[in-house]
């Protein structure tokens, strides 16, 4: 279970944590018309089988996975309704790593230190065991029509990543920084919610006076160089302090690209100025509000409706340009 994490405890050795891809939290919240600070289920690589004891709305965001409801394929990046007892099967990701299952009304387990996020390193929460039962909050919009997101931000195959200078950037020679920006990295197999390792060809990236640095705070997005000059990009569940030098920090808007990059996918980094970073920065609430303006109603394909004859089909006429068809795996 992940929400936006628990800020405010870095001095006590507890990092903020939260969803590896916070944009996916905002997308789910926009689809369901609820707060992006609610908790969702984060599915790493593959999902599971889910059912509800009463009608619920769900939303599916993040890394696209094959999802079916009683055998009917569900569109990704969309909201759907489950009737009591229906079985939702979510399979393996077709791109990216972390898929998210959101519930209308949110998950209502008790909070620990102001959050429902699991933080495995701290012993808070954990992986969900089979047959877990999770309480759900009330959903005031249970009967709202389903929405979908036409163009979710592409971020599931690696790509270009923006970073800013940080407290230790000046420890690296200008030539080293230039070489870092020019290097075509790949996301190595070694990675988890604490960070991902970058693979590359050529010499490592070392700072001047690398030894005996006093430990300082680390934040998600920091790109640290281990002893042999191998870069690691830190993710939300990283440790709070460390003594390895850091060449810069990935901006929060682009951290989901790193978190969702599957092993082997390409990553390239370039510095932007603090002003450029500030211009592109948005709070989670702002991202959600922006996405809410882009959702569209989701309509069903008659070919997939077994109870078609029970519907009154024509009660008026429209130009029909706004129709979209449910029933395909999302290819975005």
């Amino acid at each position, binding site marked *: 279970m992940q929400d936006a994490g628990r*800020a*405010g*405890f*870095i*001095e*006590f*050795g*507890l990092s903020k944590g939260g969803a590896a891809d916070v944009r996916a939290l905002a997308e789910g919240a926009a689809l369901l018309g609820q707060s992006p600070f609610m908790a969702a289920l984060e599915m790493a690589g593959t999902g599971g089988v889910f059912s509800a004891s009463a009608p619920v709305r769900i939303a599916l965001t993040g890394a696209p996975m094959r999802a079916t409801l009683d055998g009917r394929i569900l569109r990704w990046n969309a909201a759907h309704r489950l009737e009591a007892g229906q079985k939702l099967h979510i399979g393996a990701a077709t791109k990216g790593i972390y898929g998210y299952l959101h519930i209308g009304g949110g998950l209502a387990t008790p909070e*620990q*230190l102001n959050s429902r996020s699991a933080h495995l*390193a*701290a*012993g*808070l929460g954990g992986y969900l065991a089979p047959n877990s039962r999770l309480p759900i909050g009330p959903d005031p919009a249970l009967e709202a029509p389903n929405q979908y997101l036409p163009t979710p931000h592409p971020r599931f195959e690696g790509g270009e990543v923006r970073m*800013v*200078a*940080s*407290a*230790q950037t*000046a420890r690296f020679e200008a030539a080293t920084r230039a070489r870092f920006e020019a290097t075509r990295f790949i996301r190595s197999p070694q990675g988890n919610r604490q960070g991902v390792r970058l693979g590359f060809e050529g010499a490592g990236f070392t700072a001047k*006076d690398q030894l*005996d*640095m*006093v*430990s*300082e*705070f680390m*934040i998600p*997005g*920091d790109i640290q160089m281990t002893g042999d000059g191998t870069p690691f990009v830190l993710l939300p569940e990283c*440790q*709070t*302090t460390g003594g390895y030098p850091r060449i810069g*920090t990935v*901006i*929060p808007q682009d951290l989901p690209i790193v978190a969702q990059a599957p092993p082997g996918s390409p990553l390239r980094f370039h510095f932007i100025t*603090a002003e450029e*970073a*500030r211009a592109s*920065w948005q*709070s989670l609430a702002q991202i959600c509000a922006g996405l809410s303006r882009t959702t569209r109603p989701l309509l069903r394909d008659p070919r997939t409706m077994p109870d078609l004859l029970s519907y009154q089909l024509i009660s008026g006429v429209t130009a029909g340009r706004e129709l979209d068809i449910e029933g395909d795996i999302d290819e975005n």
Partner: protein
Amino acid sequence: MTPEQPKSPFPAIAPMGVDGLLVRFADTLSESANRAALGFRAALAEAPLAGVEEVAAALASVYLRFDPAKSSYKTLHAALESRLRQPWQAALERPRRWRIPTVYGGDHGPQLAEVAALAGMSEQAAISQISATPLRVMSLGFAPGQPYLGLLPKAFDLPRQSALTKEVPSGALTLAIRQCVLFATPAPTGWRHIGQTRFKAFHPESDTPFPLRPGDEVVFSPVSIDDLSRQPPHMEAAP
């Protein structure tokens, strides 16, 4: 005419990501750098800066996180420069004091003898010196609530072991490089295990999940194994 002193690069202010600043007092750990970090952090807590959401002290630096919608690096950089020029060192004057009963040596501190030998003194002398002075919580890290305490006398400037101890228990008191670490969870470590406490560093269900704060002082007072179960760790003096 006195020769010109080279200007110290510290304290230095730098950005941390898009929503943070770091005020650094030194590149290496020292008593004065840690006091500076803790004192400046206390001063910022007494008189908060607008737009700042979190302030945290590490061994020799202070981190501030702000809301980019409410402030900016430029504004806070200027505000911090101004604060650094004001008197702030006194903010650390009255620390909270803890007494944590500790069983030293034997089965509960299997490496105390080694530490004493490396430090060139008897085990009894080592226990006396380690428990005599209150140790300051210089920083918390590695696990939630886990303290790094110091600084011990120079005789205890011993390197970490190159081969790790497979696991020390929760509450283990360990020593290296003039510091002690009190373990919050069972973990492998290169720090030498010199004693055992009943201290629990992290209470997730409590209103005060982290009993220790940077700047607190701790006395690890020697007790027998019987007394360990009778005497809980407690805070003796609050400012």
